[in-house]
C-alpha cells in the first residue's frame, strides 16, 4: 500500500487534533523529534506534578505557548500535542502562527470511537467516562469542516489505524528558501519600464541575448527586485525580458508594489490608474490576451522575498525586517511590497515609512529597492539600489558576492518625481548607536579568534566608561590591546630580562623578532584625515575637526582642542611633504603611537602618588640612616644577635647597611620617574613616536612585518618635524647565540639609565603557530624602571624573591582577545561596515579592561 503522504513546510506550527486516547503522543514521537513536540500533558506535569490534573491546564498552556514562541523565534518546527478539539484552542494556535509569520498545519486523528473506548479501558492510569470520549469524537468530526476557515493552511485527516501506521511526513522547503543557490547574482533595482536602460545594463553586466533570451556565459543570474512596470515607456518589453529570463532559469524575481497593483487590474479588480499604471495598461491592452495572461500568472506566482547563498543574501522589493526573513505570511508579504508605513502622509502626499533599516541588525545582507535615491544607500548591512532610473537617475545593479555596483544612466527623465530624490547620505556612519546592542552579553566574531565573549557585567562597566569618558564613537575605530610582560626572569637579579622574551617566540616557532625601544610615554591612537570634509564623509564627524588623538581607553588625549588641532596640522604638513597621501592612496590614516612626556597624561598620578612616595621615602629613610649612623658610632660593644625573636638584640651595623641600601634604591626610584617628566610650555615640547601604521582607506596593515611599519614610518613621518620621533629598533635571530647577546646588550644600554625597556615583537604583526595566535608583542622592562612599578626597593633580595611569583596567563589571554578585537574593528571599518559593528569591538576592548588584572603587569 502507498504511504499516506503528509506534506508540511520545513518550518511551521503543527497542531495535532484528536480525541483523548487517539494516540497523538505516540504519533508525534514516531514522526517528529522529541524536542519538536510540546505536549500539554508534559507541561501539566511540570506545573503540578500530575499530567492529568485538569485544574492546572491554564498554567500548563501558558508555559507551553511560551516554549512554542521561543522555538518559533528560532525558526524551529513546532508540534502542539494537545486534543485541540475546541475551537478556542485552535484559535490560539492560528494566532500564534500569525504572530510568528509561519503557516499553521493541522493533522487530525479521526479514529473510530470504539477503538478509543477500548484503549481507554486498557489504560490503568486514566479512567475516563465513556461519554467523554464520545463527546471528543463528535467534536473532532465537527472540527474537520472548520479547519480551513480557521486559518490552517495545511490540513491532513487520518481516518483509520491503517492510515495512521502507514504515514509519511514530508517536509517541504519554504518557497522563499533558496539558500542552496549561490549565484553569482546581479541584483537589479526598480526598472519601471525603462527597457533601453535595462538592455544596456544587462549588456554591461555581460549578459548575451540568444534566441531572444538573455543569459550570462559565466552562469551568473539576474535577480530582479520588482517594479518592472509603470511610468516608463516600454513596460511590456521589460516584462517580456524579465519573464523570459526567469522562466529559462537565468533570473529570479520578487514582486514590487506596482506589479501587484497591475496584477489586481489583470484580475479584473478596480484600481486607481495613477503613478504611471495607465501607461502600462495602455501597452498591455495592445498586446495579446495570452501575453496578458502570461503576465498575470507570472506576477501571481512571485514570492515576496528570497533567502539566497546560505542565508547570506536576502532580496525583497521594499526590504525586510530581520525577524521576517525566511518566514511567510501576508504580513511579511505586505512588508516586502510596501515597507512599514505609519498610516500618515508627508507634505508630498506620500506615505510616511518607518526606517526599518536603521534597526536592522541581521547578518544577512538585504538588497532592496522601492525608494528612489540619487545613490545607492547602504545602512547596517542593507542596500537600497533603486537609483530612480525612471525619474532620470540611473538603473543600478549590485553584483553578488562582489558587492560592486554597476549603473547605466537614464536616457532621459520619463516621469516627474513627486518629491526630490533622497540625497545620498552614508547612514552607516552617521547613525546613532543603540544601547540595546551593547548592554548585554556580547558574542563578537573575529577573524583572529573564533569568537570573543564579553560578559554582561563587563559590558555594563564598558557602557559607563564609554558614556562618561570616551570620545565620539565615530572616531573609535581601534583601541589598543593590553601588553603582557615577558615571563619572569630566571636570573637572580632581574625580574624581567630579554632572554625570556626571545625564548617565548623561539619556542613558538618564530625565528626573527623585532625589538623596539619602549618610550616611556602614554599610548596614543592618532587618526588624521586630509581635511575636515574627509572626517565628515568617512567618519561621520561633523564638528569641523580633521582628526583625533585618544588614549588607550578611547578618551580624548587633550582637554584643550587647540593643542590637538595644532599637533594634527603639523602631522598633516609632514604627511603631505612626504607624499604619504598619494603613496598610500588614502585620505585618512590611523596610527598607533606613544606620546610624551608621560607627565602630560599622568600628571595626577605623579603628583599624588609617585612624587609624594619619593619624598616621604627619602625623608624617612634619610632620617633613619642618620639616626642609625649616630647609634652605630656610639655602640662598640658587640651583642649576641638573634634575627628572629621579638625583643631580641639587633646588629646596628647590619641595619645601617640595609637602610643605606634602601635609601639608595629610593634615590634611584626618584631619578627613574623624573626621567619621564618634563614641563610642556609649547607644542614643540611634545614628542610623538608612531610605531604602527594601523589602517588607511581600504587596508589594515596587520599582515605587514614590523620592519615594514618602521621603514614606512621613517620614510613618511619621522625625522622631519622634531615632534614626530623615530623608534629605535633592532632585529634578533632567536636561534643565534650572538644575535641574542646583541639583543640583550642593546636592552641593557637602553635601560641602564632608567629607560623603560623594549617591546619584542614577532617579525610579522599577526603571527600564529599553527592555529594558535601568538602574543603580538611582549614587553621587557628595565631593571631601574621597574622601581616605578614595584616600588623603590623591589630589588632587595627578599622582596624580589616574592615578586617573582606572578602569573601572566590572565594578562596574556586578555592581550590576545583585545588584539583580535582591535584588528577586527579596523577591518570592519575599512570594509565600510556599520558603526555598531565597529563600535562593538572597541566596546569589547573596554569591557575587558574592566577585568581585574594585576595592574603592574
Amino acid at each position, binding site marked *: 500500500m502507498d504511504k499516506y503522504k503528509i506534506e508540511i513546510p520545513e518550518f511551521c506550527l503543527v497542531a495535532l487534533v484528536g480525541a483523548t486516547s487517539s494516540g497523538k503522543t505516540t504519533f508525534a514521537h514516531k514522526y517528529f523529534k522529541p524536542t519538536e513536540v510540546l505536549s500539554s500533558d508534559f507541561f501539566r506535569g511540570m506545573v503540578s506534578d500530575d499530567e492529568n490534573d485538569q485544574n492546572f491546564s491554564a498554567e500548563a498552556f501558558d508555559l507551553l505557548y511560551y516554549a512554542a514562541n521561543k522555538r518559533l523565534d528560532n525558526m524551529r518546527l513546532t508540534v502542539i500535542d494537545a486534543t485541540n478539539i475546541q475551537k478556542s484552542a485552535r484559535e490560539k494556535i492560528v494566532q500564534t502562527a500569525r504572530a510568528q509569520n509561519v503557516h499553521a498545519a493541522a493533522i487530525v486523528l479521526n479514529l473510530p470511537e470504539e477503538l478509543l473506548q477500548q484503549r481507554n479501558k486498557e489504560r490503568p492510569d486514566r479512567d475516563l467516562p465513556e461519554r467523554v470520549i464520545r463527546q471528543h469524537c463528535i467534536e473532532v468530526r465537527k472540527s474537520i469542516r472548520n479547519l480551513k476557515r480557521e486559518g490552517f493552511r495545511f490540513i491532513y485527516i487520518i481516518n483509520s489505524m491503517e492510515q495512521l501506521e502507514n504515514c509519511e511526513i514530508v517536509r517541504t522547503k519554504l518557497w522563499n528558501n533558496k539558500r542552496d543557490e549561490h549565484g553569482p547574482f546581479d541584483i537589479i533595482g526598480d526598472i519601471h519600464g525603462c527597457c533601453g536602460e535595462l538592455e544596456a545594463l544587462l549588456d554591461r553586466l555581460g549578459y548575451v541575448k540568444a534566441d531572444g533570451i538573455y543569459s550570462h556565459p559565466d552562469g551568473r543570474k539576474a535577480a530582479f527586485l520588482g517594479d518592472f512596470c509603470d511610468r516608463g515607456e516600454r513596460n511590456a518589453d521589460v516584462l517580456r525580458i524579465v519573464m523570459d529570463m526567469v522562466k529559462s532559469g537565468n533570473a529570479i524575481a520578487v514582486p514590487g508594489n506596482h506589479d501587484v497593483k497591475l496584477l489586481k487590474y489583470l484580475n479584473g479588480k478596480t484600481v486607481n490608474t495613477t503613478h504611471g499604471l495607465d501607461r502600462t495598461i495602455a501597452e498591455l491592452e495592445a498586446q495579446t490576451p495570452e501575453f496578458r495572461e502570461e503576465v498575470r500568472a507570472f506576477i501571481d506566482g512571485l514570492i515576496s522575498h528570497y533567502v539566497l547563498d546560505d542565508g547570506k543574501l536576502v532580496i525583497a522589493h521594499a526590504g525586510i525586517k530581520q525577524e521576517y526573513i525566511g518566514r511567510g505570511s501576508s504580513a511579511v508579504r505586505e512588508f516586502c511590497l510596501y515597507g512599514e508605513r505609519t498610516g500618515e502622509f508627508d507634505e508630498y502626499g506620500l506615505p510616511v515609512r518607518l526606517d526599518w533599516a536603521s534597526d536592522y541588525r541581521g547578518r544577512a545582507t538585504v538588497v532592496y529597492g522601492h525608494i528612489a535615491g540619487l545613490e545607492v544607500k547602504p545602512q547596517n548591512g542593507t542596500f537600497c539600489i533603486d537609483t530612480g532610473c525612471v525619474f532620470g537617475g540611473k538603473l543600478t545593479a549590485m553584483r553578488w558576492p562582489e558587492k560592486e555596483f554597476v549603473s547605466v544612466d537614464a536616457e532621459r527623465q520619463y516621469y516627474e518625481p513627486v518629491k526630490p530624490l533622497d540625497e545620498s547620505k552614508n547612514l552607516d556612519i552617521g547613525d*546613532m*548607536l*543603540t*544601547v*540595546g546592542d*551593547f*548592554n548585554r552579553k556580547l558574542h563578537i566574531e573575529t577573524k583572529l579568534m573564533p569568537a570573543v565573549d564579553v560578559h554582561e557585567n563587563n559590558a*555594563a*562597566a564598558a*557602557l*559607563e566608561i*564609554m*558614556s*562618561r569618558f570616551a*570620545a*565620539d564613537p565615530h572616531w573609535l575605530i581601534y583601541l589598543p590591546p593590553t601588553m603582557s610582560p615577558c615571563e619572569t626572569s630566571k636570573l637572580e637579579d632581574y625580574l624581567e630580562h630579554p632572554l625570556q622574551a626571545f625564548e617565548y617566540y623561539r619556542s613558538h616557532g618564530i625565528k626573527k623578532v623585532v625589538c623596539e625601544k619602549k618610550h616611556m610615554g602614554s599610548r596614543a591612537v592618532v587618526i588624521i584625515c586630509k581635511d575636515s570634509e574627509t572626517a565628515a564623509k568617512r567618519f561621520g564627524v561633523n*564638528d569641523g575637526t580633521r582628526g583625533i588623538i585618544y588614549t588607550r581607553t578611547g578618551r*580624548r588625549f587633550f582637554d584643550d582642542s587647540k593643542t590637538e588641532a595644532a599637533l594634527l596640522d603639523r602631522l598633516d604638513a609632514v604627511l603631505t611633504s612626504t607624499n604619504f597621501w598619494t603613496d598610500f592612496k588614502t585620505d585618512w590614516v590611523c596610527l598607533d603611537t606613544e606620546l610624551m612626556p608621560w607627565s602630560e597624561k599622568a600628571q595626577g598620578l605623579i*603628583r599624588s*602618588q*609617585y*612624587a*609624594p*612616595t*619619593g*619624598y*616621604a*621615602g627619602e*625623608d*624617612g*629613610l634619610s*632620617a*633613619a640612616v*642618620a*639616626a*642609625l649612623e*649616630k*647609634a652605630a658610632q*656610639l*655602640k662598640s*660593644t658587640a*651583642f649576641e644577635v638573634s634575627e628572629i625573636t*621579638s*625583643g*631580641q*638584640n*639587633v*646588629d*646596628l651595623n647590619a*641595619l645601617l647597611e640595609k637602610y643605606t641600601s634602601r635609601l639608595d634604591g629610593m634615590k634611584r626610584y626618584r631619578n627613574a620617574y*623624573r626621567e619621564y*617628566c618634563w614641563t610642556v610650555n609649547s607644542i614643540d615640547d611634545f614628542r610623538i613616536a608612531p610605531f604602527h601604521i594601523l589602517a588607511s582607506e581600504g587596508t589594515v596593515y596587520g599582515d605587514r612585518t614590523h620592519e615594514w611599519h618602521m621603514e614606512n614610518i621613517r620614510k613618511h613621518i619621522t625625522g622631519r618635524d622634531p615632534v614626530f620621533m623615530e623608534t629605535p629598533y633592532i632585529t634578533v635571530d632567536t636561534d643565534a647565540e650572538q644575535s641574542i647577546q646583541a639583543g640583550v646588550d642593546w636592552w641593557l644600554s637602553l635601560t641602564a639609565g632608567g629607560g623603560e625597556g623594549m617591546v619584542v615583537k614577532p617579525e610579522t604583526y599577526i603571527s600564529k603557530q599553527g592555529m594558535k595566535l601568538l602574543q603580538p608583542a611582549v614587553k621587557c622592562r628595565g631593571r631601574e624602571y621597574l622601581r616605578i*612599578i*614595584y*616600588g*623603590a626597593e*623591589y630589588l632587595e633580595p627578599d*622582596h624580589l624573591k*616574592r615578586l617573582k611569583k606572578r602569573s601572566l596567563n590572565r594578562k596574556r589571554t586578555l592581550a590576545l582577545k583585545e588584539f583580535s578585537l582591535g584588528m577586527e574593528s579596523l577591518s570592519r571599518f575599512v570594509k565600510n561596515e556599520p558603526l555598531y559593528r565597529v563600535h562593538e569591538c572597541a566596546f569589547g576592548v573596554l569591557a575587558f579592561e574592566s577585568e581585574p588584572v594585576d595592574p*603592574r603587569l
Partner: protein
Amino acid sequence: MLFTITYEGQNTQELGFLLHKNPERPQQFELNHGRAYVFYPEVSDTRTTAALLLDIDPIDLARGKVGSSEGGLFDYVNDRPYASTSFMSTAIVRVFGTAMSGRCDKRQELADTPLKLTATLSALKDYGDEKLAFELFEPLGYEVKTERRTLDERFPEWGKSPYIDLTVSGTVRLSELLNHIYVLIPVFDKQKHYFIQEDEIRKLLSHGEGWLASHPYKEKIAQRYFAAKRSYARRAIDKLLEDEGEAAVPEQEQETEKREFTPLNTIRMEAVKNAVLASGAASVIDLGCGECRLTSLLLNEPQIKKVTACDVSTRELEKAALRLKLERMEPFRKNKLTLMQASLTYKDDRFSGYDCACVVEVIEHIEPARLPAFERSVFEFAKPQTVILTTPNREYNANYEHMQENALRHGDHRFEWTRAEFRAWCENVCERFGYSVDISGIGDSDEAHGTPTQMGVFTRNG
C-alpha cells in the same frame, strides 16, 4: 617611619628605665605588618635620644597580607612604609605600652615627673595644612616646629610636599607625650591601615584621658581620627563633652547644622519635584538618578504612578537600591519603580513612553562633544511631553569663597554654563526638536550672579 624621643636634663640615660628599653641594647620587635627597631642614637648624662624605627614590608602591603582579606589595599608605589601613619601609633603601643601607662617600677617617681622632652616624627602627612600641627600640639603646652620642603626639587612647579617633619618639645610626663603622639598621628594622616570599628572609640577615649576633653580642637581631632565614620566621631565627642560636664549638643541645633550642610541639593530636588507635579505628569523617568534623591521624593507622590530611575554607573544604582531599601520596599511603591543602567549618549527605546524626563545636574558631566548625542537621545527619540533639566550657573561660583577663579564645582564637571550659555543651548534645542522652554533659577538669588542652579522646563510643542 622614624620616631625619636629626646630627654634633656641630668642622668638622662634614665630614659632607658622609663621606656623599659636598655640604651646599651638595640632591639627588634616583630609586628603584624613588619618590624620595629629601638635604639639610642644619643646617650649622655645631659641628653639621651631613643629612636623607634618602623620597617613596614611594602610587598606585603601591596599583596594584601595586611589590612584586607582580599587583595592589597595599597599599591607597590606607596608612601605607607615611609610616612608616619597609623602604623606608627600601633607600633608605639606595642613597643612602649608600659611606658604609655605611666608605670615604671624602678623609677616611678621619675615617670610621674614632667621632664624636658622632645619628640620628632619624619614625613607626617598633613596634606599641606600649615596650621594643623600647631592647632593640635600647642594647646597641650608644646613648642612646635615643622619643616616642609618642595615635593620634588627638580620640578619646583609641583609645589610643596604634603608632609612635614615635626618636632614638639615641652615639659611633660613621658606617658603623656606618648599618648599625645599616639592619638594625634592618625589625626594627621586620615588613611588608616585598619578598619575602624567601635572599639576605636574606647581606645581614643582611654588614650585621650585627662587631656582630650579639654583640647580646643577635640571635635576636629575626633572627626579626623575616625575619618569616614562620622557617627563614631559624634559619639566620641558626646562622650568627651559629658566628661567635661558640658551639655550634649541639643537635638535642634544638630538639625540646623544638617540643613545648612546640604541646603542647595534639597532645595533643588523640591523645585524639580514641584515642576514635575505642575507638568501634570503621571510617569517620570529620572535620567542620571545618582543616589535617587529625586526618585524617592517622587515615589511618595500619589500623582506619580510610575518612576524609572537610570544611571550609567551600576555602582550608583547599587547604592541607590540600598538607600531606597529596595529589598524591603512595600509592593505598592516597588511596583511603581524601575531601576536600570542606561547611558544618555546612546539611543535607548526604554526611554520612550514617559510623560516627563528629569535630567538633574547631569549634563555638566557629559563631554561637550557628546552633547549632540544626548540631545538626540532625549529630545528626538525619547521625546517626552516635558523635560526638566538643571545645571549649575557658573556665574554664581563667584559667591563661593573657597573656589578658585575659573574652577568648577566638581572634579567630574566638564563644563559649567553661564545663564546666557544655558539659555542659548536651551533655545537651540527647542528650535531643533520642537520644544518650548521656561527657564528659572533655584536657590538663593544674587543680583549680579543669579542663582546657584538654573532649571529649564521644556514642553513639547503641539
